[in-house]
């Protein structure tokens, strides 16, 4: 019998708030973190969701007087801080520390600081703040990194390599990623509109999120029932037209969960608002028989936060399970994918038990994880 593994502590730092509660209130109120920006990072004005540095510094000053940290490090430490504190863990050898990111402190390259741009340096800096004893594990698997980190943590706990894992995910909006997505002509000229007929591409955002993954049932919020991370084996910079990797990932996750697709109450999908991604997801969800399940993308609120997105969206999804609330998919108006899916158009109160989180990314990667709200449902 494999161990049951749970998500207990959760937190996030985003343009919509510095706690899960603050974020969730803003989401329910329909508030978006996306704003128009005009600066030296891009030749033209652009939209993105940016964390305010003044507030960040003020919040960070409450936990330490040290000022030697980068913006991303501060955001990661702040996301982890209340979870580590509440856990009372000794952070010893049986406690894993996972960090997921795509570009980490990439802005260090602007001053040719190679060492500071190394992802293991970022992970060690955050680990040392708290005093984790085990060697940090960095997950860097493009835009699935954040959700993949949960799957990795669960697998390592089930393999008895560790008893618990603190997971943090984060990425920033930088000239590096803005110019890159722009070079692909993948950037939206307005706040992004996932699954809409009028979508024109990605809006980038920045955020950090953190969770505690553990086999301890105390404080458990949701159980990780199954997961899969399968490659499309099709193209390195475009999704499979048939949604093959996503289909296989969800299938693998449901099989491990021993759960039929009909049991899923709600899907937090990837929804980057590029024409190909959203179309691919619609095809995969139809192949899986999930086309009538309420679905949203949170990218219309947060933009695409890259390596943070999967973990941030999981944190919000588990909070949605706790509060039995479906959040409307921001930016959605008229359906713009060729196969039918049920995009959530209005906030709705509904009993929620099973939740599916999916993500897809460059390199043909996909990840799906199925969660069950922790509790007794009379069975």
């Amino acid at each position, binding site marked *: 019998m494999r161990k049951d593994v749970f998500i207990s502590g959760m937190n996030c730092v985003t343009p919509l708030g510095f706690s899960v509660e603050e974020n969730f209130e803003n989401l329910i109120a329909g508030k978006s973190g996306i704003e128009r920006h005009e600066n030296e990072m891009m030749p033209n004005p652009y939209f993105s969701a940016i964390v305010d540095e003044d507030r960040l510094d003020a919040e960070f000053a409450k936990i330490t007087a040290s000022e030697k940290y980068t913006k991303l490090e501060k955001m990661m430490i702040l996301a982890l801080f209340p979870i580590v504190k509440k856990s009372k863990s000794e952070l010893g050898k049986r406690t894993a520390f996972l960090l997921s990111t795509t570009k980490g402190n990439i802005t260090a390259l602007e001053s040719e600081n190679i060492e500071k741009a190394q992802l293991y340096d970022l992970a060690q800096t955050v680990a040392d703040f708290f005093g984790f004893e085990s060697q940090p594990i960095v997950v860097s*698997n493009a835009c699935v990194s954040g959700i993949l980190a949960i799957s990795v943590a669960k697998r390592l706990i089930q393999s008895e390599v560790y008893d618990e894992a603190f997971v943090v995910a984060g990425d920033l909006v930088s000239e590096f990623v803005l110019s890159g997505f722009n070079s692909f002509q993948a950037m939206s000229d307005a706040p992004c509109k996932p699954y809409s007929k009028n979508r024109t591409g990605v809006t980038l955002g920045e955020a950090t999120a953190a969770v505690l993954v553990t086999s301890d049932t105390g404080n458990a919020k949701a159980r990780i029932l199954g997961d*899969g991370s399968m*490659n499309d084996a099709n193209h390195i910079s475009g999704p499979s037209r048939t949604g093959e990797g996503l289909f296989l990932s969800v299938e693998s996750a449901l099989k491990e969960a021993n759960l039929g697709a009909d049991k899923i109450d709600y899907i937090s999908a990837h929804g980057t608002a590029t024409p190909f991604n959203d179309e691919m997801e619609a095809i995969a969800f139809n192949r899986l028989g999930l086309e009538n399940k309420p679905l949203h993308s949170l990218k219309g609120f947060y933009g695409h936060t890259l390596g943070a997105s999967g973990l941030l969206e999981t944190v919000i999804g588990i909070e949605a399970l706790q509060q039995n609330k479906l959040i409307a998919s921001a930016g959605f108006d008229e359906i713009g994918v060729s196969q039918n899916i049920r995009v959530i158009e209005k906030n709705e109160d509904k009993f929620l038990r099973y939740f599916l989180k999916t993500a897809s990314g460059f390199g043909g990667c996909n990840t799906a994880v199925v969660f069950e709200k922790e509790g007794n449902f009379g069975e």
Partner: protein
Amino acid sequence: MENKLYIKSYVSIENGQISIDGNVVFESSASNVSDFLKEGLRHFGIQYPKFFKMDNLSKLAFLGSELLLKDQDSPETALLFANSSSSLDTDVTYQESIADKDNYFPSPAVFVYTLPNICLGEISIRHQLKTENSFFIFGAFNPDFFIGYAENLIETGKAENVLCGWTELFKEDYKAFLYLVSDEGKTEHTKQNIELFYTN
């Protein structure tokens, strides 16, 4: 683990040499890593035009995986890779392309390689591996992690075999060590054996 796992075969690429199961099979005096990897590809008679558009990290990972997967293609092979410098080699090249506003030429063909897991996509496409794949970063090679994760993939039925790869590359410094974990083979899948093969 109920069933024993084995290291079926392993490949090392470093210091201008390629070896399979500890035997040197190719040596080159090429002055840079890019030429060395190209020579290696030709030496083994691998025909794959896409190779030439890859960045050096993908070329290194691709060549290593080619030597392990060419005779034992199984569609159920997962990819478990890691290194220490992520895609920093290409990140530096890309950063140079945007640093000078008078000479600004961000290229999507370069940008896509600023992710370390792209090499997994390249290998997956080549061998049609619609399987579990993940890329990790560690300050140094971490055999405990590789063992735990590879065993979990096989034990839980998520994969039949796991191609493990440590593929480190930054500028002219590189080292690739790849090995195939399977339920058949002669060498047991232990930390001691992995460390022995890694340092050889």
